[in-house]
């Protein structure tokens, strides 16, 4: 399963990379191919390319904020989830999202 996603928080310093790393790590453990883009204070870091967006089975947006370039994910299954919970329980978040998509 290919999962891409974007994390973003207001100041863009701490939660953004923490959530991205947590989800990527959890993905590795669960056997999903997870790539997270960070939209923090540095702008876009580790950006999802249009090709990667096209191949993804699932898009996770770990933020309640404005995300740039959402057009990439047109016609994709896009899930929004709270960024804090992604840091606390990344594996559970991935499992829940995957289950929701497979339903």
């Amino acid at each position: 399963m290919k999962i891409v996603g974007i994390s973003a928080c207001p100041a863009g310093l701490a939660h953004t990379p923490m959530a991205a790393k947590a989800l990527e790590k959890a993905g590795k453990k669960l056997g999903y191919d997870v790539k997270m883009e960070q939209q923090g204070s540095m702008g876009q870091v580790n950006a999802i390319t249009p090709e990667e967006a096209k191949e993804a089975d699932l898009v996770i947006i770990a933020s309640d904020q404005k995300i740039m370039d959402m057009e990439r994910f047109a016609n994709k299954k896009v899930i929004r989830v709270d960024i804090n919970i992604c840091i606390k329980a990344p594996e559970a978040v991935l499992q829940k999202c995957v289950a929701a998509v497979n339903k």
Partner: protein
Amino acid sequence: MKDFFKEAKGHLMTGIGYMLPLIIGASLVVAIPKIIGLCMGITSLDPYAEGTGFLHILKLIENVGWTGIGLINTVLAGFIAYSIADKPAIGAGFIGGAIASNTQAGFLGAVIAAFIAGYTVRWAKKHIHLPESMNSMMPLVICPFIATGLVAIIMGAILADPLAWINNSLVAWLKEMSTSGTSQLIMAIILGAMIASDMGGPINKSAWLAGNALLAENIYQPNVFINCAICIPPLAYAIATVIRKNRFSESFREAGKGNWVMGFIGITEGAIPFTLVKPQVLVPINMLGGAVGAAVCSILGAKGDIPPVGGIYGFVSITNGWAYLAGIAAGAVLIAVLATLAVDFNQQSEESSEEIDMDEIEISFEDIK
């Protein structure tokens, strides 16, 4: 309705996210000439507005910073509107924010103007349908025109006076509170405890949001306490890993090094992994440290005369910067001592991801056109 507020908060946060770099850049450009002036024994550069010479140049540079600070409402409103309805809303948002500054409708006015601009554009995109051939008119002409027109009518004519009155009363009350001794101390204690409570969670963010909102109103004092308290928890655990090495496992000692940096630039989240070892004990200790640090800051007389910059180096932007540093040090040392007395960090973290119930995780699907 609940969804609307949740969404509105997201837009507000986005606006503040874009506003922060502006404030930080502008404040430092105000602060540095002031400090150079202070080093030369001059407390205010205002008398050098006219004339020539080095001090006049410093004053000119300081003025540029103030221009930036004057843009806060404008930028805030512009990017809230952008967050709601993308490019076509930005212009109306900027205009609304600038009008809010001009009519003294302030932060409140800027936010209202931004929501008018944003939601008008969103409404227009959905409900106004033009013939195919004229489609390009929508984002370029129709949406900006309707949104700006509505902002002009509501913010310029109808709400200008009432909002200015509300805003001015509010500002007067908050200014009073942040200048007088006892109420300022209480404010410091509450903000300090809130910031250090859940480190980046909802309580911390509400205090932080309030502080940043007040920056747009030229009320800088609360942010002095907030910035002070933000540095305390990560710095505290960095200090703790050095003074009580044997209480920490190898990986925590490693994390402690990172916390020096987190403390220095002001990221409370650095303390999270430490706090999670025994939150029921460490959260109260953190809150106590944040409150005491901010209180020390207040008692020793750290003052925000220009928008304060976060992090330990932020002391340059604070009048009596040493008091700010003393507050941070006091809070951090207090936590470092109490935390290592109460908790042995060699044990494993109690909270793991398994403990979170799947049902607690809220997810929602989103449609991308």
